[in-house]
Structures are given as C-alpha cells and as structure tokens.
C-alpha cells in the first residue's frame, strides 16, 4: 500500500503561507495513495498559474503544459497510453478562462481523466486580477470599480456538457476533498473536481472564514447524485455553497470506443516495420 509520502519530491512548495494549494496538494497525495496509484503509471498534467507548481511537487511522471492547454495534452497522453492514470491539475483562469474551449470539449468526450481545478476566483500569479469565477462586483486590480460580469458556474456547465463525475471540494477540508479525489480517480470517465481554494494574498473576499460560513456537505440525505436535475439545482445555489459529489453516471468513455486501442495501448504497437505496400497498391 502506497503512502502519501511516496508521492513527495525533494522540492519544497513555494506557495504563500496559508495558500489553499497546500491543502489540495495534501489531499491529492493522500488520494493517490488510497487509490493505489503507482508512481510510474501516473502522469500529472498541469498548466500555468500558481497551480503549475504541482508539476514539481508530485512524484509521478509530470508534464507542465502552458496556460489553458492542460486538457489537450492530457487527451494526447490518454489516447497514446490509456493504461496510465492521468490527473490534470490547473487553476480557474487556466481551465475556465483561456482553456474554456478545451474544458467543454474534454467533458463531452468523456475521456478518463481526473481534472482538479484549484478555483481561487482570482488571478494570483499575476498579482490579482479578476478571474472567470470572480463574483460580480468583486474589486480587483483589473476591475477597480467592481467586476461587471457574472461568474462562470463550472459545475452547471459540466452538467450541461457531459462530464460524468462532477464534484466540488474545499481546500479547508482536506479529508473530504481527498475522498472526492479518490472517487474521481476511480471513476471511469471524465471527472471534474472544482476546489474552493482561498488565496490569502490577493483574494480578501473569498477567505477560509467566508467559505466556512457558507459551505455545507452533500450527502445521501440531502442530495441524490444520480439526478441531473437535482444536481443542477445544487450547482446553482449561491448563498449556501454545497460541496461533495453533485453528479455521477456510468457511461462509455471515449477510449472505450476507439477500436484501435481495444487490444493494447497505442504505445505498445510495434512500429519497426509498418507495411505500406497495400497503400501504395491503392494508388496505382
């Protein structure tokens, strides 16, 4: 049985003291251990933003993409070798802003990828501009008069677009978040785990305290995660903020329907002498 420490690297995280990323990193490593992931059979794909550092802090294969392009890279990896566990970790700007197009298409494809979004509702690494999930009226360096736009609602979007495992966690509740990630990893298909992540330096509105006053957990008594309608209602709540599993369903994954990789992973195909005589014949 793997332990969370087995996923440590020699690097010391450089996030701000108190950053929500510490809790998320802890939950990810615990979840990987609990889900029985082997270091060499997993790839962590990250993007750009404060969350890009996950690339350096988790001892698996790792590929840090550029801003917004986590999911296309993750797709390529999955299709090349669907025996690998692919865990994508990025921020709200990365996934819901610049990478929004890929986010939607990745969900409707239902590739077996676990996508964790560290959603701090602010651009942290660039020192505090409004993000796609910033609340309306939120004053930032780029919206000194208050944010005019309404926030993206990632869970409602995921429900509408076809993700097959949709959950939300809170960086302030590591063990609850860990269990959501474990289930996400085990789930066959695209899993989205949006994580409330306080940014202690640039977001003084959505703080630990602010979340603690608002979050409540979804459980069997107050929610049926098999119901898309109920999940949509929960996803639209904006006074009290539910965390937990919103929705999950069993569905064929994209990989399941690719005939070329039924027998073995694409990477295992022998390419030492591919015959093209038949293709040349066709052109005669």
């Amino acid at each position, binding site marked *: 049985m793997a332990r969370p420490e087995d996923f440590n690297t020699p690097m010391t995280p450089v996030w701000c003291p108190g950053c929500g990323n510490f809790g998320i990193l802890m939950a990810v490593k615990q979840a990987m251990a609990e889900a029985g992931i082997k270091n060499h059979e997993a790839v962590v794909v990250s993007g750009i933003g404060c969350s890009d550092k996950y690339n350096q802090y988790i001892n698996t294969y790792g590929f840090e993409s550029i801003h917004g392009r986590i999911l296309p*890279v993750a797709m390529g990896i999955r299709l090349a070798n669907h025996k690998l566990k692919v865990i994508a970790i990025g921020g709200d700007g990365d996934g819901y802003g610049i990478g929004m197009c890929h986010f939607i298409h990745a969900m409707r494809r239902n590739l077996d990828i676990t996508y964790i979004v560290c959603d701090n509702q602010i651009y942290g690494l660039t020192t505090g501009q409004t993000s796609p999930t910033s609340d309306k009226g939120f004053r930032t360096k780029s919206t000194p008069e208050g944010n005019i736009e309404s926030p993206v609602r990632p869970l409602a979007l995921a429900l509408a677009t076809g993700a097959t495992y949709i959950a939300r966690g809170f960086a302030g509740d590591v063990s609850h978040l860990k269990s959501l990630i474990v289930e996400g990893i085990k789930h066959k298909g695209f899993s989205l785990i949006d994580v409330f992540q306080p940014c202690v330096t640039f977001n003084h509105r959505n703080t630990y305290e602010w979340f603690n006053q608002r979050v409540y957990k979804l459980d069997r008594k107050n929610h049926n995660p098999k119901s898309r309608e109920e999940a949509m209602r929960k996803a639209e709540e904006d006074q009290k903020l539910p965390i937990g599993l919103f929705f999950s369903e069993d569905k064929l994954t994209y990989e399941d329907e690719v005939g070329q990789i039924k027998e073995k992973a694409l990477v295992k195909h022998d390419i030492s002498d591919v015959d093209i005589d038949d293709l040349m014949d066709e052109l005669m």
Partner: protein
Amino acid sequence: MIGGKAGYGIMVTGTMFSRCCARGGLHVFDTTEYPSLIRGGHNTYQARVEEREVNSHIELIDLLVALNKETVDRLKDKITENGGILFDSSETKINREDMRGDIRLYDVPLVRISKEVSGDKVMMNTVSLGATIALADYDLNILNSVIKDTFSDKGKEIVESNMKAAKAGYDHIKSNYKDAFKCRLERISSISSEKRMLLTGNEAIALGAIRAGCKFYAAYPMTPSTPILHYMASHAMAKDIVVKQTEDEIAAIHAAIGASFAGVRAMTATSGGGFCLMTEGLGLAAITETPLVVVMGQRGGPSTGMATRTEQGDLRFVLHASQGEFPRIVMAPGDVDECFHAAAQAFNLADKYQVQVLILTDKHLAESHKTASRFDTDYKIERGLLSDEQLERINDFKRFEMTETRVSPRTIPGQKKGIFRVPSYEHDEHGWNSENPGNRTRMMDKRMRKIDHILKDIPDPKIYGEKDADITIVSWGSTKGAVLDAMRFLKNDGINANFLHLSYINPFKADFVKRFLGSAKRTIIVEQNSTMQLKGLIREKTGIEIQHTYSKYSGRQMYPHEVYDRVKEVIHG
C-alpha cells in the same frame, strides 16, 4: 482540361482521367483550381500527360472538356492549334464564328446520355470521360477498371451504369467524328514498363508518416492540409492509428505533444491560419524537448487570404514562429517523392534529436497529383528511447542530461525507473524549475547546439543539371517542377542552366550553398512570394546576393514558361 461549376464532380472526373493515363504507363501531372465554396463558381482540373516524366502544369490546353459556357469563355484562348472543345450544345452554346477556325468542336449529348443511363444528369462527367478516351484513341478497358475501383464502394449498380455512360460517350465520338484528333494517348505496355502510383503531396506525406510509425494524428480541418486528415482517418483502423479531429488547432498540437510525450509518434497538419494558433504549442514542444512533426500547407495569406490558392509566403513565419529561440528542422519538399521521404525522415529526426520538424508544403504541391514510382520504404526506425534494461544501469536518471550530442536520454511514462517531470519553465537536467543564470545559459546552449549535429545529419541541397552552366536557378519547395521543366525548354534553345533546390531549409547548409553559388556565372531565384524570403535568407546565411529574381504571388502556381521567359530575359539582357 475539364472545367465547370463546383459540385459537378470535376475533381473526381479529373483524377479518374489521370489514373487512366497512369495505368497505361504514362506520366501525369495534374492540378486543380477551385474557389472556396461548395456549389457554383468555376472549377478546373488540368492533366498534363507525356511519355516522359512531367513535373509541372502548363498554360496550354489540347482538349477542353467544358461542362458550362464559362469554361469556354475563360479558356478558349489557351487552346493549342487544332485543339478541341468537348461540350454539350444543350447546356453550352458555342458559336462557331466566335471560335478560332482551327479549333475542333465535339458536341456530345452528355446530359441526354447521362439521363438515358441513370435518369439524371450526374453521369455527364463519366460520359465526357468516355468521349475523351475515344478522341485520344485510348483504351476503354482502362477507364472501366478505374470506374470499377472508384465506385466499387457505392455498389455494383453504380459501377455498371458508369461503365455504360462511358461506353455511350465513347461510341458517340467513334461514330460521329471519324477524323483523328491531334493527340493520341498510347498505352506503354512493354513488360519492362514500370507501374506507377498517382498521388498528391498530401497523400505522399501521409504515406511517409504511416511508414514511419506515426500512430497519433490530430488536426483541425484547413485547406490545403485537410486531405491528410481524410487519408489518415480512412486508414486509421487498418493501420492502428488514432486520428482525432480536435476543437481547434491549439488542441491539435497539444494533443500531439501529449501523445508524443507518452511515447507514440505524433503529427499534426494545418495551414498558415491554424499554424498561428499552434505557435505556442511549438514552443512548448521545444522547451520540453518533445519530438513532434507538423505539416504546414501554405496558401495565400494574410488572414483568410486566398483559401484554396497557392503561395510560399510563410517561410519566414515558420522559421521564427513562437517566442524565444530553439532548434527546429524545416523541410520544403519539392515533389511527391520528396514529400514521402520528408515525412518518413521527419519522425526519425524528431525522435533522434528531440526536436520539432516542420514540413512546408503549399496548395499546389499538397493537392496536385503526380505519377511516381513506388517509394523506397527502406527506413530504419530510430526512436532514441531508453530501455528498462538501460535504466537499470543508471543511478541518477536525468531526463535533460548534458551529453556530448546535447541529446538527453528519454523515457516514457510507465517505465519504472524513468520517472521525470518536465515543466514549460526553464529547468535543470532533472527537470526541476530553475532560473539560475548559469543553468539557463547551459540549457539554452544544450538545446541550440543540437543544430550542429542535425546539420551534419541532413542531406545537402540537390543540384540538377551540369556543373558549368550559363545560369544557376535557385528555388525551394513546390517550384521545383516548374524549374525542372523550364530547364528542358532552355536546353532546346541551347541554354545550359543548372538548378539548386532547397528541400531542407533549416538548419541551413550555408557552406554548401555559399560554395555552389559563389562559383555560379549568373544567378536567379524563383519564389511564390512577394518579398523573396529565401533570397533574403541566403543573403543572411552566406552573404551572397542573388542577382535576379522571378516572383509570383497571384495565388496561382508559376508555369515553366514563365521561368523560361525570365531566364532568357536575364541571359539576353
């Protein structure tokens, strides 16, 4: 030449005619011109057929198959002496007195015959094909074999009615026009005659990629590279290739990068507009040293420009695309044979040096058919990956280790002892982020110095013609065919020209080019762009200023006679 509205099946008909000629042992070069729309407009398909190799299209027309009046009006002046027009007077009104006296008119009831055979006018093309075969006194059986192969997946009935339509067109000519037409096609059927393929640059690239073991292909449709997507998709199951049409070109290149990182050979293809979107991915592949092959089919720019027309305007763009400095290989094959070998070689070079290889084509090369001998497929696959056994013997695996050749050991996910992580940030030999100035300089040098080794590994530019020539012509990419054919015309006039063709542009073989051009009597460069991009590059790399130029950027490929005329002008002052 066959012409008519888009939607008339001009391209299928043209390709069938070319294939008929190829099957008879003849050499073909064909090219198609069409606007960016699905119905209407004016489409043409021109096939040039000879007993010897043909490398280009020419402006003159021996036989014009006109499916509408516009075709006649636009092209009648290009018809050669005693050439002909094949048309249907019920669709296309031609006044004899508007035509040059020597032009022969062949009125064939294409619509009536088509309707008799199929109840519809859809087969008028096939009728015209049968009539053309009759005029050229060629073998109807060859056409029947091509019909069979073209329509077999549409069912026996379609095959048979097409054959009937072709036969009726054939018979109509034979019984109504007894005088021989000036051009005859004759089957070269000696046993020694070699069978040839008929294919486009796009198909040749796809074949090269498949041979090289490309297993992942991601793309977003864009002319002129879309046919690669179609080809790869239609052969994906048989050849175990995963083909993914993505939401955009950004996703296409990043998916290819992901697949390559995970260990499969991966490719994407696009045109200038799509390549704009891909440039950030190109840089990502570069800093992560992920092998990648990108096909860039040029067309008229900027922006949407001329979507279905040809141009060589993106050489400088491809040479410098993406921020920062990194090594890249840029190929510019000149014909279908070079397209095949460029693609096959691209994957080896990409893997061997962990770099990105860009194959530059253009609409003319990508979509024109040429007959070609079967390709030499004798390629050794060079992956440059560490085996598990090799890993066992390594104590401290460094993915970005500084080595003699600057190429580092590479593993793929799944290998127990090969774990590494790579950031898109600058990093050290292990792949840990590093902004240390010393490390930065070392890593930049490591990546850039790979160029020195690549330079030794790629072939010298090709030289055609004799050493001691009156004039040296220089070109790159698809203009090769026009130059080669122009050299023949020049030779007939007693002008001895030779030709330096660059099919690998980066890294640049400066010493070779300098030596060769330095001893040339006169020099001229031909390019399909307005700023003479290669000319500037040659000056930058060698200090040599090529004396004369011929450039064309009308969106149409240059003809050999244009090169011929310009060379004569230069020689005779």
